[in-house]
């Protein structure tokens, strides 16, 4: 069936072995240089700009279809959408009324404790590009990159809560690792009582887990988890998820806690990049030290990076944070 008819079939491929060895050595060299010395940033950046048209070309039919569907949606749908959005806006405005006052108050209180809150002030919205980067890792490509000031380790939110953090920045795009990636961890706090711990991804977009809570820890199903802001990577106070199930096995020292992420990890089309306050007051020594590991390009072992500073953080107000 498959007819190869190149008559040059018997043509020599002399030096096949030699060329193969050469190319393999080149590839191995690239791997080693990229991994060990991180010298290839420029090359990678250049190549990624070359690859950008391909990515756009693949993503554009899907975006075009979305645009087409929107532009032909009926008057009734639009009307219903508008009513719904207005209702949501009204609700959001109610909630916002007290926000300014509360934020000022929080700032004052934190100043009293000589603690500088990383309050996010600048936001940029990015579109998720319709591309499967990797079937085995929970990552997405977003159409904002170094040109827009995105940096590695930056927090990314969506309308529901924390979405993930930036793992890699190219000129025009950036790769965001989701909170549900199996190699991702994020410092969180139970909103009800301030209990601090770490939420770790599972590789399943609908599930996170809290592996470092003891069986006696005060956490129940329905508890809201928010970012604690420790470790400095994420601004404090954004919802991460709600506790779905707590399994306590008396034979184990650690509880088995399942969390449902607040962000719509599998449905979001737009995400928000967050910049910490640009005019934040100078960090105190302890806090600066605490933030060290978080600013290192950390997505590979964020668990370790986030876990380390937690133990060195300010004394817990309520419960002792369970140690790893």
């Amino acid at each position, binding site marked *: 069936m498959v007819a*190869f008819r190149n008559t040059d079939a018997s043509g020599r491929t002399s030096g*096949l072995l030699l*060329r193969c060895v050469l190319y393999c050595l080149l590839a191995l*060299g*690239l791997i080693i240089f990229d991994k060990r010395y991180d010298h290839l940033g420029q090359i990678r950046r250049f*190549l990624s700009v070359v690859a950008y048209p*391909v990515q756009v070309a693949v993503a554009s039919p899907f975006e075009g279809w979305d645009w087409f569907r929107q532009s032909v949606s009926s008057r009734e749908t639009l009307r219903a959408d508008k009513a719904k959005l207005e209702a949501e806006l009204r609700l959001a405005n109610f909630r916002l009324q007290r926000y300014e006052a509360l934020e000022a108050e929080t700032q004052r209180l934190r100043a009293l404790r000589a603690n500088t809150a990383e309050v996010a002030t600048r936001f940029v919205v990015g579109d998720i590009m319709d591309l*499967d980067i990797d079937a*085995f890792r929970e990552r997405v490509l977003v159409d904002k990159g170094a040109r827009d000031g995105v940096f590695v380790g930056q927090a990314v939110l969506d309308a529901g809560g924390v979405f993930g953090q930036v793992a890699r920045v190219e000129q025009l795009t950036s790769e965001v690792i989701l909170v549900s990636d199996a190699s991702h961890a994020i410092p969180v706090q139970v909103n009800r009582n301030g209990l601090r711990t770490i939420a770790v991804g599972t590789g399943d977009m609908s599930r996170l887990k809290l592996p470092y809570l003891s069986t006696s820890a005060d956490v129940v199903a329905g508890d809201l988890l928010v970012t604690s802001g420790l470790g400095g990577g994420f601004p404090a106070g954004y919802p991460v998820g709600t506790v779905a199930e707590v399994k306590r096995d008396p034979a184990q020292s650690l509880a088995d806690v399942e969390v449902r992420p607040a962000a719509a990890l599998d449905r979001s089309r737009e995400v928000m990049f967050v910049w910490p306050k640009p005019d934040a007051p100078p960090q105190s020594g302890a806090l600066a030290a605490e933030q060290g590991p978080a600013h290192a390009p950390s997505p590979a072992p964020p668990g370790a990076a986030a876990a380390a500073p937690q133990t060195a953080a300010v004394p817990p107000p309520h419960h002792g944070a369970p140690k790893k």
Partner: protein
Amino acid sequence: MALSALVALALAVVPLPPAVDAFRPDFLVLVVFYWSIESPRAGGLALAFAAGLALDVIRGVVLGQHALALTLMAAWATHLRLRLRVFSVLSQSLTIFALLTGYQFVLFWVDGATGNPVTTFSRWLAPVTGALIWPLLAGGLSRLHDR
């Protein structure tokens, strides 16, 4: 040749529903194999290396990973090409399966060596679907090549 590689590259990143995603054959790898067998002197290893590099950049993995795997396997395919031409469809598919598995194995090994292993079983599904789709893809390519 370049056009088929570009199309295959696009197919490699087109979004699919997560349930089907693990079954996605490595289109670009198959296309590179085809050209390694059909006209190794025109494309061959240079094409394999370039295609691998493109995959590395798009997937955002360590630079050189796919390039290494693809170069090795394309060289092997070139080495086997005279035999492959006279093989029946079934034997061809089986050989391609072996090549694809070797490709995945090199990727797996580099993943492990650079410290972020992906140990899910599903990564070994792609060679199976790749081998199944090979007769169609090679047939289509050779028909296009005729014109």
